[in-house]
């Protein structure tokens, strides 16, 4: 086994030499949407024409072994795949940073992560558009800089990031665990989901849409079976630019925030998963 890495290293160094013949056919059927190699698949994504042409020539309908391509063609294809990996990392960093800012009431810094026309929607509070409105909407959660005795943690976890093949836009689903506190009140546990969108402008990834769906919130001590805290509605102090884009209840109601990604094995859209009925909302 692996008691001596150096022996394993020597043993496996030759492996890449025999991989070429297998590399291209494997890419042919890959469902991942992370590179030009996936274009001929059922991922449903389409990149710019230039890539389609280049990729068609490169991997093309993928019966062409990697060795049939020129060195320059292969470098171009690999560079694109690496860029898509970097894009995913950049988006994960961006969303994590947004979370760290939001936790500490750093609204100015959080709002600066959005595109000029970006949108922010939290629960049933409605949609705020543009950095200035987003910043003011966040003031409804508390002053700039977290007030004393407050806890405002919204953890950004479990990302499924899907970068478009052109590397200019992306979508992601995130799990959000919530821990809130303020003086004079009991602590609060919560769960929510983000379905966000991003664009790359001049090489920099920004948030174009942040939509946080509250799943459930409860009193710290009581728990879900005894306490279900409803979401807040649109503010009268600073009304949103648009009403909530989707009307739903938090727990004990149930709602499925639409999946942005396709099923990772079947490749099929998850958009037609039926929403559960809700008598209060009036959803059959």
């Amino acid at each position, binding site marked *: *086994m*692996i*008691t*001596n890495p150096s022996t*394993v*290293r020597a043993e*496996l*160094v030759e*492996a*890449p*030499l025999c*991989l*070429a013949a297998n*590399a291209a056919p*494997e890419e*042919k*059927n*890959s*469902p*991942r949407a*992370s*590179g030009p190699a996936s274009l001929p*698949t059922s991922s449903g994504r389409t990149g710019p024409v230039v890539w389609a042409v280049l990729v068609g020539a490169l991997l093309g309908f993928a019966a062409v072994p*990697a*060795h049939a391509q020129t*060195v320059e063609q*292969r*470098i171009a294809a*690999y*560079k694109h*795949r*690496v860029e898509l*990996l*970097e894009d*995913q*990392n950049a988006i994960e960093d961006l969303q994590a940073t947004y979370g760290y800012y939001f936790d500490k009431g750093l609204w100015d810094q959080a709002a600066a992560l959005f595109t000029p026309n970006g949108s922010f929607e939290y629960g049933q509070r409605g949609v705020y558009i543009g950095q200035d409105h987003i910043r003011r909407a966040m003031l409804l959660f508390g002053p700039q800089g977290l007030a004393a005795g407050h806890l405002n943690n919204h953890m950004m*976890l*479990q990302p*499924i990031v899907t970068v478009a093949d052109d590397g200019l836009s992306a979508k992601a689903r995130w*799990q959000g*665990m919530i821990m809130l506190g303020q003086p004079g009140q009991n602590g609060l546990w919560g*769960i929510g989901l983000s379905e966000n969108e991003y664009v790359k402008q001049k090489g920099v990834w920004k948030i174009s849409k942040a939509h946080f769906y509250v*799943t*459930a919130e409860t009193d710290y001590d009581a*728990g*879900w079976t005894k306490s279900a805290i409803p979401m807040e509605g649109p503010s009268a102090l600073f009304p949103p630019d648009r009403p909530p884009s989707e009307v739903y209840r938090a*727990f*004990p109601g*149930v*709602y*499925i925030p639409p999946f942005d*990604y396709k*099923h*990772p*094995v*079947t*490749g099929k859209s998850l958009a037609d*998963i039926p929403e*559960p009925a*809700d008598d209060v909302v009036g959803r059959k």
Partner: protein
Amino acid sequence: MAPNRLPKSVRAELVEAPLFSFGAALERKCGPSTSSGRTVLGLLAGWLALMAVPAFAQQTPEQRLDALDKRITRLEDMNQVEKVQRAYGYFVDKGQWTQLSELFADDATLEIGGKGLFLGKKRVLEYMQTAFGKDGPKEGLLANHMQFQPIVDISPDGKTAWVRSRAFVMSVGGWGLPLYEDEFVKDNGTWKFKRESGPFTMYSSWKGWGHDALNNTWPDKFDPPPDLPPSTVYLTYPAYWIIPFHYPNPVTGKPFPVEPVGAYQAPPGTPEQEASLKVGRLADGTQPIAQPPKD
């Protein structure tokens, strides 16, 4: 459970580093959620710079590109395997059992808690729909299985992957901590679950693990019965069992000890086993059991 928890693999960066002589630049990344992509781009640039150096003449550009392709593919594979594991969690959260079962290979196995083994994709679906009801979330029910902390490894041939990860459960029943050692197979270019193995670390009511703890599940606790009995018998918190790590210590390179660790680390009656039964137990040596097994 498959005995092959210690893949004969090493991280691919260890394997290919000598080809590039960039070993120092290659940090050992445990997950793709880091800046590993940047590392690869650096390698690409470095490769371009070195193309004309005669010292590398023993390798053709095509050979070096083959190696690079393999490394990029590995990073892509790691990301995709993480996605499949995370999608599993999102499907559990919303009771999407049909979609969940589609994440499994036809001949995959599933073992959760002490319930025993279910064999095949169809049985995975039957298990979920029998135990937890038809597809879709139910009003007043919350069963979030948040998927955290993945360590992904890909086999040298790129066809098998392993993940150690955890779920953090917030549910109407309280708190829960499953741990996963899962195996994935790349089937016709698509990563799928080959084995899901999710032993429990701890389950407690909402009052918390300082107040009470549920014992592990067992094969006939609820329907349907499993196809095979549990692969391992173990106790949950406040006792513990360490599911073997599929990967070696990332710093020393030493594999995880093969013998099981925890309540069953030694045969019953031996001093080692007696001692281990006290580890993690309450001060009076008892293990609280909220729901005793049915006769």
